[in-house]
């Protein structure tokens, strides 16, 4: 799957590309509007990451060009600007998501996965990973054809781990992801431990072989061959 990163800050685009490469995404980088416009005219992408403030203009013009050409790429805006106006403007112009800097790469990865799922696999919404079958539409999980009854938070946590599988996810990223728009006001990691414990217990009971490991108190990792 191909992803275009439109971002003028090389250090950032490189990080994103490196992180996503491990998930079998092919990443291309455009550092300005002109290159970006050339690229989207010539190639097809599954998802575009778009920074709004670019050296040669506003990133929104890329969005307008996509819309004009009736392209169906999923677009996630990544911006340092986080006012509601900016968000609304971006989303109205047809972006699928809006992520404010600084963000966790694991969060970005989860959002990309969600956008691609919505865009591409409108027919099937099932994810099969390491003996787990996730229905992203119905938000259910099955182990050995047996549905595991998870709470909303537990499901979110599992999906987050699955989309970032084989990678260490920091507890900060998990806390922020789970608290959603709550801005991570608490940073209380106890509640992550509680959710994680419950999730593991439920999956184990359903006969799943535990593949989620804590990594030196830094975060968690789901190892899937």
């Amino acid at each position, binding site marked *: 799957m191909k992803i275009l990163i439109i971002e003028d800050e090389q250090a950032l685009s490189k990080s994103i590309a490196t*992180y996503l490469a491990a998930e079998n995404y092919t990443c291309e980088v455009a550092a300005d509007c002109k290159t970006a416009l050339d690229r989207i005219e010539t190639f097809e992408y599954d998802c575009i990451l778009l920074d709004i403030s670019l050296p040669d203009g506003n990133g929104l013009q890329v969005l307008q060009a996509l819309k004009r050409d009736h392209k169906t790429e999923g677009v996630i805006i990544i911006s340092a600007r986080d006012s509601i106006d900016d968000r609304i403007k971006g989303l109205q112009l047809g972006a699928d998501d809006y992520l404010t800097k600084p963000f966790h790469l694991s969060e970005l990865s989860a959002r990309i996965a969600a956008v691609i799922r919505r865009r591409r696999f409108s027919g099937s919404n099932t994810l099969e990973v390491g003996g787990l079958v996730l229905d992203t539409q119905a938000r259910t999980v099955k182990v050995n054809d047996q549905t595991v009854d998870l709470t909303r938070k537990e499901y979110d946590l599992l999906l987050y781990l699955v989309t970032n599988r084989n990678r260490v996810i920091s507890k900060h990223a998990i806390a922020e992801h789970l608290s959603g728009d709550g801005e991570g006001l608490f940073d209380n990691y106890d509640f992550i431990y509680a959710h994680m414990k419950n999730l593991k217990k439920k999956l184990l009971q359903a006969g799943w072989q535990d593949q989620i490991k804590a*990594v030196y108190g830094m975060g968690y990792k789901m190892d899937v061959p």
Partner: protein
Amino acid sequence: MKLLNKTVQYYFLLSVVLLLVAVPVFYFVLQRIVIANVDARLIATKTQLIPRLQVMENKQPLLDNDITLEKSGRPGAKDSLYTSDKGTYRLLTSYLVINQETYRLQIKSSLANHQALITSIIILQVLLLSLLLAGLLLINRSLARQVWKPFYNTLRKLRAYKVDQVEPLQLPHSKVNEFEELNTAVEQLAERSRKSYVAQKEFAENASHEMRTPLAIFQGKLELLMQTTPLTEEQATLITDMASASQRMARLNKGLILLTRIQNGQFPETEEVSIKKMTLHLLEQYQQQMQQKELILEQHWEEDLHISANPTLIEVLLSNLLVNAIRHNLKGGQIIVKLSAGVLTVQNTGQLYALNANRLFQRFSKNSADTESMGLGLEIVKKICDLYQFEISYAYEHPLHTFHVIMKR
């Protein structure tokens, strides 16, 4: 004391002194003049009488009741002029020798008429002076009010002026040079401070925004570092510490940007917000954190309060208060949320001493050793309260820390 009253006061003092001194002096001088006048007339009468008395044959001709002529044993005394005991007569006593006999001649003249005249004149004078004084005061007052009007206008405008206003300070023109100069100087001063304020604000905002990209890079690289293998526990600890620091930095940055935005008035959209509904929603959201600390939540909803405000800001206001109450609470502590008579009250148990109320709402004034607390939350709360003219106060009554937000009077 007002400048106006100050000048009037001096006028008044001068006038009173003038009245007190001038009236007796005038009275005295007037009396002297009258007496001198009467005396002159008495002497003139005497000089007229003497030749006629010299040739007089029988004793009592020409004399009316103001003039008496009696034989006197004592000759040769000098003429004397004096005022009779009661002050109603002026008497001239003179000794004459007529036909080898000594006579005492007494001529008297009434002073009563003159006294009445003097009194009338003095009354008139006092009246005139008082009228003059009153008129002077009145004219001075109205004139001063007129003259000082631009000054008071400037003062009023200056008092209402805030440096974070978008509009520059505009003072009315005055025809009086001094005021015009004052206005120009004040306008320039206000403009300078406004410009430096705006520049500072812009700097804070730009710096906060510019900081986000490097922060994103930093956070990204840290996450990549986490993926490297092999990773020792030592490295993992270092990475975790860095990640925590970057997390705090990101939150701090968010808080600062929010503050600048509130100050810039960048939340113009308002809608009807139900305080009760929003608080209940937030409490549900924080249920987990409350459970973790085994907090007991008490709620008293005597009414619902609907206010017209920006929902995002109200949510920030409420969540900051609630999060504080949860975060700084003790394990197994208590939270009381109350809404009545337009006042929202959030109470919580916590440290067993009062917080410094003076510094509580100031930037970066941390009251606890909690590293998760940035010291921005309550300043944001205060700024939102200022924006909507809510009144917030803090009190400690053992063992409860109480925040009152008066939202509606």
